[in-house]
């Protein structure tokens, strides 16, 4: 088959690909990371680039997304456009995935350090005619009665040379009382583990010193599985329809973890060989894909996962570049859409030990909700959609440089922008703020309708003139052309407000139903925990004002940051916490919301942009 060269500007990277290759694939090969929240289905238009030559004609999908003028200028969607000749492609910055800001602090809590992996320094007597014990027996007997021999051959194969080279001064590495490796000299201080939170969007890794439980480095990156789709369902679809995509999804997340290991290692000087254990949490789909297990059952009723219990595998068998004898602990999940990450949230927030009523919500593409009452735990997942992570919102973006993350409206509009640059988009916390403020000043009605300039006569003039009507309906300019990045006005459209209403209704409705599940009202809630990066940056008053969460006194609302990641660290550093996590996964009741009576009826109220529940 014919091959062609595709050159990407402005970086000038070029790749040679077969005729018919999608530009999105060519870009991936060239090391470019294009936005792809819709999973390459041609719906979001976020992977647009300029490719005037060497490509096929625009598809009907592109003709819907792009205007005739844009098509005329060579604008195309990378996910739809195929290479048919040597091509010169210009990639705008707005189509690239950029540096991001995420939660790496998290809620801290005390833990009893008792890791699964321990190292013991041994000064062994050299063999003699009086003491002719075999090498392995010499090591095991020094370790005591409960030490088990290696399950694999490699440690034994290394042992004879190692003992003699190191003059019988060695360090034994034990995992769960089993000898997994022997190292020369005393290396007890060099015992490390990695806790990883694999999110649908973001992956965070904590490098921990196991003897003390201290975090020595934190590294994070976007989950590169996004090239297969921004949400869990599109990845399930990809993994199910093509075994090659299942392998690709698996390799993608392993590559991200390896990259995080390399970065944490580079930053601290800790050798990846010193990492003997990794504890991983993620939603149920992420756990499947990490292990290369098909999530097919999660895609359709009755939504069944392939496994629920914790899985322990050798690092080498997954291709994770730490000590090959290291083990990977994949935490247990609660149900098909409530995963090990939620177990992590419960563990970090100690919801399993609540006497009074507590409710936690992890707001992301899926909103996971946990209610704890008198030792009983209920959890559910609501499909909030990606609105709070930037997709489906016309000017939406993730919380990275250039994102408006807070908005105030008085006589004028005052936006706070991450990185103190001109704004180029709006992230989740900015979206909630913007809508709360627009409702407060009367530019948007509680039903979600954006007023026309004529109707909004009570607004201060400088605010009112930001209301603009065009062929798509009303828009509100958060940043005028002269205030925004690339001199393009940044507007919140009437449609954006509607999308947010749908997303927040899913989360609010889910929380209300979960309270109903335990026979409680919002007033009964002793504590409401907001987990996840979004939860940490969101202004509580705005979340309450638009009814994203039920009316709980503001002082009872606590942001606990990346609680899922904290949970992973607890499981890494403490076997008793790990057992506790298993008990949490086993005992938490998974509530399937779509089967609850009343979800539909409550939906109208849940969509209102006001403090909820409404006074009845």
């Amino acid at each position, binding site marked *: 088959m014919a091959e062609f060269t595709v050159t990407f500007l402005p970086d000038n990277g070029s790749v040679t690909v077969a005729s018919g290759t999608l530009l999105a694939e060519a870009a991936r090969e060239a090391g470019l990371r294009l936005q792809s929240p819709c*999973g390459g*289905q041609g*719906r979001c238009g976020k992977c647009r680039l300029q490719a005037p030559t060497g490509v096929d004609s625009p598809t*009907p*999908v592109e003709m*819907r997304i792009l205007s005739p003028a844009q098509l005329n200028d060579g604008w195309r969607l990378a996910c739809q456009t195929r290479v048919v000749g040597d091509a010169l492609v210009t990639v705008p910055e707005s189509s690239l995935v950029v540096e991001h800001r995420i939660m790496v602090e998290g809620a801290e809590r005390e833990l009893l350090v008792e890791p699964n992996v321990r190292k013991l320094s041994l000064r062994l007597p050299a063999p003699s005619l009086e003491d002719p014990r075999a090498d392995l027996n010499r090591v095991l007997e020094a370790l005591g009665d409960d030490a088990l021999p290696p399950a694999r051959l490699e440690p034994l194969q290394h042992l004879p040379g190692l003992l003699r080279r190191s003059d019988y001064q060695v360090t034994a590495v034990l995992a769960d009382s089993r000898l997994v490796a022997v190292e020369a000299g005393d290396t007890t201080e060099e015992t490390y583990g990695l806790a990883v939170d694999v999110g649908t969007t973001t992956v965070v890794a904590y490098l921990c010193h196991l003897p003390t439980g201290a975090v020595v480095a934190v590294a994070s990156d976007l989950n590169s599985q996004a090239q297969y789709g921004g949400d869990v*369902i*599109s990845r*399930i*679809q990809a993994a*199910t329809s093509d075994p090659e995509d299942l392998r690709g999804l698996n390799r993608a997340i392993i590559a991200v973890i390896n990259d995080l290991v390399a970065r944490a290692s580079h930053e601290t000087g800790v050798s990846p060989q010193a990492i003997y254990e990794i504890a991983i949490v993620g939603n149920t789909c992420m756990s499947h894909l990490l292990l290369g297990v098909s999530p097919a059952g999660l*895609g*359709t*009723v009755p939504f069944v996962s392939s496994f629920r219990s914790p899985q322990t595998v050798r690092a080498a068998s997954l291709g994770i570049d730490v000590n090959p004898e290291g083990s990977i602990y994949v935490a247990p999940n609660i149900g098909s859409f409530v995963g090990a990450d939620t177990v992590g949230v419960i563990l970090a927030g100690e919801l399993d030990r609540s006497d009074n009523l507590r409710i936690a919500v992890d707001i992301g593409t899926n909103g996971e909700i946990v209610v704890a009452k008198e030792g009983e735990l209920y959890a559910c997942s609501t*499909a909030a959609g990606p609105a709070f992570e930037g997709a489906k919102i016309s000017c939406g973006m993730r919380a990275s440089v250039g994102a408006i993350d807070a908005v105030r409206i008085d006589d004028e509009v005052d936006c706070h922008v991450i990185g103190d640059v001109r704004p180029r988009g709006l992230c989740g916390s900015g979206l909630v703020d913007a809508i709360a403020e627009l409702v407060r000043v009367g530019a948007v009605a509680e*039903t*979600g*309708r954006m007023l026309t300039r004529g109707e909004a006569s009570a607004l201060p003039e400088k605010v009112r003139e930001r209301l603009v009507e065009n062929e*798509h*309906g*009303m828009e509100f300019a958060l940043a005028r052309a002269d205030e925004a990045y690339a001199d393009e006005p940044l507007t919140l459209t*009437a*449609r954006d407000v*509607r999308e947010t*209403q*749908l997303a927040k209704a899913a989360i609010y409705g889910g929380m209300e139903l979960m309270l109903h599940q335990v026979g409680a009202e919002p007033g009964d809630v002793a504590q409401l925990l907001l987990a996840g990066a979004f939860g940490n940056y969101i202004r509580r008053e705005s979340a309450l004002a638009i009814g994203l969460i039920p009316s709980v006194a503001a002082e009872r609302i606590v942001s606990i940051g990346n609680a899922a990641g904290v949970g992973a660290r607890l499981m890494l550093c403490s076997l008793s916490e790990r057992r506790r996590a298993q008990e949490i996964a086993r005992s938490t009741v998974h509530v*399937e919301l*779509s*089967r609850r009576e009343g*979800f*539909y009826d409550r*939906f*109208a109220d849940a*969509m*209102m942009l006001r403090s909820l529940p409404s006074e009845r």
Partner: protein
Amino acid sequence: MAVLEELQQAIISGNRDKAKEFTRKALDEGLEARTIVVQGIAAAMEVVGEKFRANEFFVPELLIAQRAMKASLSMMSGAPVDYIGTVVIGTVKGDLHDIGKNLVAAMLEGAGFKVVDLKVDVSPAQFVAAANENSANLVAMSALLTTTMGSMRDTVAALSDAGLRDKVKVIVGGAPVTQSYADEIKADGYAPDAASAVEKAKQLLPA
């Protein structure tokens, strides 16, 4: 007929109590049920649909208008009504999402269709059986997951196999569904939202 105009206003603004009150009044004034349905309820829901398409109304307004509409319709039960067509509607096999499907069903009902709602997780065979039993003119399918939308194709095929394909029109919708997907599976129509679904249904079933 001022009472019908007042009924329309009550439905459009989602006032359930007023909708009941004016329905009662219209019946007391001796208006025929079919007149109330066509000139009161359906006319009101058409305005609601127009406002929805104009982005003036959205799901909350639609929901409260539907609630008022249903209150009014329920007072008409037993009275003869001329339906403009019969629709079999459901969320496809493997899928439990029903908010969008419920919206469409209510809009169709408000427009004067007889609606047979098969609820959720509806198999191709169930669509076929219901279309047969009810002599349906239209089959409307919803899917919210990319993993389940394939069932739409299977249902279209099952309708063909059952020899029903020239008797019923098929419309599809739901977040992952597009016009091109509808074309690909040989559905007769695609609607991006509840208001357009009614418009599309009326187009497909010329009186």
